[in-house]
């Protein structure tokens, strides 16, 4: 199928009003906040070298923090602030999505605004400031009538840089729950949907380019004292903002929000859950690509209403348990523990998505490796790859302890690329997922965990505290419980990893529902 006639372009386009509107909204708010803080600071410190130096140093340090990390840091920070607010003032706010994204991006926008603001104000000919005083201006009048107008073109250049940075970095706010053009990129990367990745990149690049050009027109107008250019630029910006924001405004509450982590299985399952709720006459949307620590807190805080997690993950990460129990016992204990946070564990879907050490079948057979214990003898000459969190998870520590594993090298990889890397021999062993269809596709084999170092990972449906007594919701979801076996989920995941129109999460979710009904 030709790239241009791919129906996924249409699917991507259908998301555009929502993604673009939210992207512009958060960028605009961040930039406005950034300016509201930075410009007064630039003005206040223009004649005070010591605080000015400190301020610029702070802004520079913020700038060196990678955008993704800065955004991720704001989530726990706000979460803590929200709980303090609740304890002291009895009010709380959502630490999810818009607020952390806006604050982090605002901080990110400060350096160019501050630097250019200070440069612009300090670069004014001192003779003109003396002239302003000499004709009888007060300090304030001199600032407003002479210094700021003269510094404006340089300040505008800083604002322009900040705007482009904010628009670019806003694509990284997807994992903390802020819908943005990054949704295309994150979802596309996870499901190997290159049309989405390309679309997301193009859309954010075009947006940044358009804003840069329009602000450039304003800057140019200010520099050449051409009112026409400045006015055209302002009108252009206003039109752009209006065109992107209006379609998202006036939309009523989104109803139930279904969360999804950042891998294909989660996209498929969240689409399936959303479809089930809609079929039951409930309004529902999916919020995808959430970071795996963000998503549980978001559920607890009620920012999302439901999602699918895995028993072993919660056992290790939320209950901080390193002992292993049989799956039914573990589920029962987990259910009791979650109930203390008022989270409902509605039930399991019927399959397990466990971590497993995976290697090419032929190589395993040649070396006589069937279990992880067999692997341990060869590990010192082998390399291993895992997803971004695996090597810092308790399961990895448990595996190393139980089998005395020590590999020659370890690497982190995008999950969907790991299987191909193992198949091609680029790495020897990967920490894969048992429900992944790619294990079969690439003729790989999962090694037996004979010492039960890895806990069971039943896929379980979790509901937010505020949905604990929601019978309509629970009735709509119950038909799914226990109905998805591992073979079905593997096939669904394999379909989702394809790079064609039938591989979109929505399409696979429909296929999966068909299988459930059989």
């Amino acid at each position, binding site marked *: 199928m030709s790239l241009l006639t791919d129906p996924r372009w249409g699917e991507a386009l259908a998301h555009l009003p929502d993604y673009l509107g939210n992207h512009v909204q958060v960028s605009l708010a961040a930039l406005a906040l950034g300016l509201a803080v930075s410009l007064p600071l630039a003005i206040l410190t223009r004649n005070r070298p010591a605080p000015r130096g400190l301020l610029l140093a702070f802004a520079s340090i913020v700038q060196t923090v990678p955008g993704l990390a800065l955004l991720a840091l704001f989530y726990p920070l706000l979460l803590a602030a929200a709980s303090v607010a609740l304890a002291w003032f009895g009010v709380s706010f959502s630490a999810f999505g818009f607020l952390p994204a806006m604050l982090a991006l605002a901080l990110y926008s400060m350096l160019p605004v501050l630097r250019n603001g200070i440069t612009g104000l300090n670069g004014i000919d001192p003779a003109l400031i003396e002239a302003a005083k000499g004709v*009888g201006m007060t300090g304030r009048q001199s600032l407003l009538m002479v210094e700021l107008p003269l510094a404006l073109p340089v300040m505008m250049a800083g604002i322009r840089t900040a705007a482009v940075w904010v628009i670019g970095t806003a694509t990284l706010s997807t994992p903390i729950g802020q819908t943005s053009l990054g949704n295309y990129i994150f979802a596309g990367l996870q499901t190997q949907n290159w049309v989405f990745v390309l679309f997301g990149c193009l859309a954010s690049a075009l947006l940044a380019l358009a804003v840069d050009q329009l602000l450039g027109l304003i800057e140019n107008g200010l520099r050449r004292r051409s009112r026409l250019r400045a006015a055209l630029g302002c009108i252009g910006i206003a039109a752009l903002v209006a065109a992107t924001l209006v379609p998202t405004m006036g939309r009523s509450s989104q109803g139930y929000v279904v969360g999804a982590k950042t891998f294909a299985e989660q996209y498929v399952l969240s689409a399936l859950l959303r479809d089930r709720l809609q079929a039951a006459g409930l309004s529902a949307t999916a919020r995808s690509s959430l970071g795996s620590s963000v998503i549980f807190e978001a559920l607890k805080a009620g920012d999302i209403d439901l999602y699918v997690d895995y028993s072993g993950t919660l056992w290790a990460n939320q209950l901080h348990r390193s002992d292993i129990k049989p799956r039914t016992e573990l589920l029962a204990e987990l259910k009791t523990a979650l109930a203390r946070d008022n989270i409902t564990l509605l039930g399991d879907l019927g399959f397990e998505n466990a971590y497993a050490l995976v290697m090419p079948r032929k190589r395993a057979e040649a070396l006589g490796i069937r279990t992880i214990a067999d692997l341990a003898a060869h590990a010192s000459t082998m390399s291993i790859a895992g997803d971004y969190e695996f090597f810092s998870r308790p399961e990895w520590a448990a595996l190393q302890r139980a089998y005395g594993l020590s590999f020659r090298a370890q690497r982190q990889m995008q999950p969907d690329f790991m299987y191909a890397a193992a198949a091609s021999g680029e790495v020897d062993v990967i920490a894969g997922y048992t429900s992944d269809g790619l294990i079969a596709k690439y003729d790989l084999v999962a090694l037996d965990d004979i010492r039960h170092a890895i806990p069971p990972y039943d896929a379980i449906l979790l509901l937010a505290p505020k949905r604990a007594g929601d019978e309509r919701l629970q009735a709509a979801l119950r038909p799914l419980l226990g109905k998805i076996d591992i073979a079905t989920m593997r096939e669904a995941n394999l379909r989702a990893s394809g790079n064609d129109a039938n591989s979109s999460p929505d399409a696979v979710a429909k296929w999966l529902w068909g299988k459930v009904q059989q």
Partner: protein
Amino acid sequence: MPSSPMIGYAHVTKSFGSLRALSDVSLDIAEGEFVAIVGGSGSGKTTLLRLTNRLIEADGGTITVEGEDVRDVDPVALRRRIGYVFQSGGLFPHLSVADNIGITPRLLGVSAADIAARVDELLELVQLDRAAHRDRLPEALSGGQRQRVGVARALAARPRIVLMDEPFGALDPLTRDALGDDYRSLHRKLGLTTVMITHDMTEALLLADRIAVMRGGQLRAQGTPDELTRSGDGYVLELLRTPRRQAERLNALLPQGGAA
């Protein structure tokens, strides 16, 4: 000399850090006088001028303007009632000629219509074509035109006193001469009291009623050109000899009455 001078400096001292810029300077300027303060760089002449409208503050001594101690007058109000012509214009580059000229009246809250009328009047006074120059930005003007706008701006709020900081220094000789003469007649016509600082004794002799000579922060001599020639100060006499020598050489070089 009248009993109350228009501007009075009495035992004025000023230091910048360890540098003594003025020591014990006393000078009275009568209403309607045109006084030139002549000196080299570092002589203290600019410091003395800037003290007059409190762009800087004196360390010691007393400065009076129209009989009032300047320390008792709000500095902003003081500056609005004293015209100030800056070296090379000091025009605001982002404001049109009209907006530059009208700035002090605007600060004083004069209505836009009155300011517009006043600007037209002033453009005529400094001999700039109204239609051609009113809405231009300073960058579109020649040096001489800019300084004419600078003079118009200083006069806009009808001050009785005008302070001039080397106003014609950066201009070519012809423009400089014309501008000097034009200002001199404005000074007389409007009954202004003018203090001009310059490093050029010839300019001072040609324009001013009285000349004060400064060197190293001290007032070395003051008086009419005639009185200065009787000063016993060697530096003052040397300053006066130069224009005369130049005039004599020019007389010898150029045929008498042979202006082409």
